[in-house]
């Protein structure tokens, strides 16, 4: 079985976020980039599948050279080979198209993506890939069993869980539940050493895809003001504050 795990390279969740002067891009100064946490659940699942039934795992990322350290980490965790498509990763449409192009030339049974990427939270890439390749798509996947030609997947829906069976190849957008947080792998020293010699291929995009979204301005959410605690006997004061300060009533 050949598995592709799409990896988005995102700022560490503890990073202090700032923007470039024109407020159109993230200021990358001092930011550590990590594997998008949703993708990490998928990667771990793929490695489990490799360990139990010998699947071959490729990781792919669309982006500039900073995503290489993230891909190296994926290799150190156990992926067999890595591909970086040397293109801007700002638009989900373009990212999905570039990955789909790669998939049409290389055969994969399962294409894993994180349900969304924690930088822009678009949640569009996996759906776009499936559409472009005309493959079945399981979104918000929280459990997966597989045989050679089909998968049984559990996915999260508003009212609970849905079980579905699906032929392969397929696109699966995963999240926590696919594996648990405790299962996430830390690369071992040996893994890191061996990753140095595993292939990391850098490909230039064969087509360019127009961005259908233009970012006008990025801004931070306004800071939360201090929390005021009002004693339970002071309902009057509470009403006053809600009316005059918070202006919600």
């Amino acid at each position, binding site marked *: 079985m050949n598995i592709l795990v799409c990896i988005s390279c995102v700022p560490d969740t503890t990073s202090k976020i700032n923007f470039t002067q024109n407020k159109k891009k993230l200021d990358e100064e001092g930011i550590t980039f990590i594997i998008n946490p949703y993708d990490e659940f998928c990667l771990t699942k793929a490695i489990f599948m490799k360990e139990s039934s010998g699947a071959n795992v490729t990781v792919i990322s669309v982006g500039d050279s900073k995503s290489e*350290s993230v891909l*190296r*980490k994926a290799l*150190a965790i156990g992926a067999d080979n890595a591909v970086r498509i040397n293109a801007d990763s700002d638009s989900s449409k373009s990212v999905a198209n570039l990955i789909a192009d790669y998939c049409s030339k290389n055969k994969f049974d399962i294409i894993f993506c994180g349900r969304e990427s924690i930088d822009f939270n678009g949640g569009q890439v996996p759906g776009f890939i499936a559409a472009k390749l005309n493959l079945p798509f399981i979104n918000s996947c929280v459990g997966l069993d597989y045989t050679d030609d089909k998968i049984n997947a559990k996915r999260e829906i508003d009212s609970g869980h849905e079980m579905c069976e699906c032929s392969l190849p397929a696109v699966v957008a995963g999240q926590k539940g696919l594996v648990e947080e405790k299962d996430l792998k*830390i*690369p*071992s*020293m*040996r893994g*890191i*050493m061996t*990753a*140095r010699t595993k292939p990391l291929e850098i490909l230039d995009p064969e087509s360019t895809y127009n961005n259908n979204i233009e970012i006008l301005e990025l801004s931070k959410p306004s800071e939360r003001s201090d929390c005021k605690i009002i004693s339970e006997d002071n309902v009057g004061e509470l009403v006053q504050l809600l009316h005059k300060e918070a202006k919600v009533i």
Partner: protein
Amino acid sequence: MNKQIGCSFLVEETNFNNVFIIEEFDKTSLQMIEATREFVKKEIEPNVHELENKNYELVKKIMKKAGEMGLLGLNIPEEYGGFGMGFNLSMFICGEMSCDSGSIATAYGAHTGIGTYPILYYGSEDIKKEFLPKIASGEWIACYNLTEPEAGSDANSGKTIAVLSNDKKSYEITGQKIWISNAGFSEVFIVFARIENDKNITGFVLKKSESNGVTLGEEEKKLGLSSSSTRQVFYDKTIVPSQQILGERNGGFKIAMNSLNVGRIKLCAATTAAAEKVLNISISYALQRKQFNTAIIDYGAIQEKFAHMATKTYASNAALYRAGNDIETKISELIKNGTEKTDAKLQSLLSYAVECAIMKVYGSEVIMYVSDQAIQIHGGMGYSADTLVEPAYRDARISRIYEGTNEINRMLIVEMTLKKAIKKELNIFKKIKEIRKRIPLTLLGINKKIVKSSLSKEKQIVVNIKDLTLLLLGLAAQKFKAKLVKEQELLLRIADLIIETYISESVLLKTEKLIKLNGKENCITQIKMLQNHLCESLNTIKQASQEIITTCSSGFEKKILFILLNKLSNSNDFKIKEIRREIALRLKNDGKYGFSI
């Protein structure tokens, strides 16, 4: 030029291009560091409070997991199941593993340092093949049995005996060891015992089994290192095959001492990382703790503490990785010249034994200072076991005792330096003569020409510190000759001078290198820390020098020396209060000590 000789810092000037700073770790090293941090976050951090509950099993569990990650075999060559990593990288990782809990730090240090090196350096090929892969994987945990109830600092006086069997195939070991870290869950015991009336002890390695006469005392009740297993080990006619001698018969003291060299410098890796951690915890606390409507980090009295804590952490880091790199470079040099790999490591560490001892003493005193001030910054809360600074303070205390007490290490620093001078390994006496010759010029305020630097004022101070150190070392040696070793108080003061020389120069070199890499405008705080360090260093130096001068000279000579001391220890150029405030302000703005990687 005898560049690759330990202790040469006293007689030569080092170019900053030749020192290593942690900012230079390559990508793979950074990945390994990152992976270690993830491990620590997952396996150690959530357990820091539980590790205060004498949970020895938990330490064992964490060690086993570290083994699975490959974190116990960093220094073991690949052919024996390890990773043959560079010295500095393994030190940095040791720091990361050690910074959260003294119990883990000690277990890790005892296993990967003194529990591994005697086998790696002195074991036969068969022994290495049998023991090292399992030590690297953590399948077997190791402990080091040197200290006895009557033989602590005087380790070679141990009473444990080893008797050769009639068929000469084995030894029978009988005796009592005390304070043995990891004893409770170790499979591998490195033990030192005396054969017949040998002058020195001999090293052995054995695998513990139910029937081989090894029994353990109860867990010791200790001030700190709550979950680190520390027990007595009793040997009652324990049989060890003759092939399991480490090195040669009568050669155990050498093994013990050489293994301690690594142990000492690695201890500093642990203390430096712990200092950074404790500093960060304190910054977070001081940012949010308000008194008199002001966050306490905004008070000068607190800022001054932060400035010192940061400066000492920076200094310890600068010197540690400079020393580590020198050791690494010498190993490569020796290998290139045909020395066998293990021998090369051993020789290099031996050559840099002074630096190892310096780092042990300095690092252990930095963590004492930093953890003490951390408690002060936390006020009453710092006295509470609910904080992390309380165990940090208790755990820090041992580092001035084990791996050779700081007194023993200080005296060793001077004795080893003098030995190098007498054996003419280093031209120390010639250098002292030159400095003496220059005294009239120095008195006239004519400074020695120094190599150009972007930090010329600071560099001049470092040159002065070095001159003063050599001059007073020479003075004491001349006055007491061979009897100097009996003048312990004097030795301690001279050691302080040597330590300050090494650390000050290292801070200067690291800062110069950072300026080259990142530009002066991006090194403002590092320069301030250098200046703060030099001012503090000069205070120590003045005090030590006064004692040496009054003990070793009189009359006109004494008068001249005091004038000279005043000239050479001048730091009046620095507005020290402002410097410290600026350092603290930077910590406040960053919300952390931001000078690591």
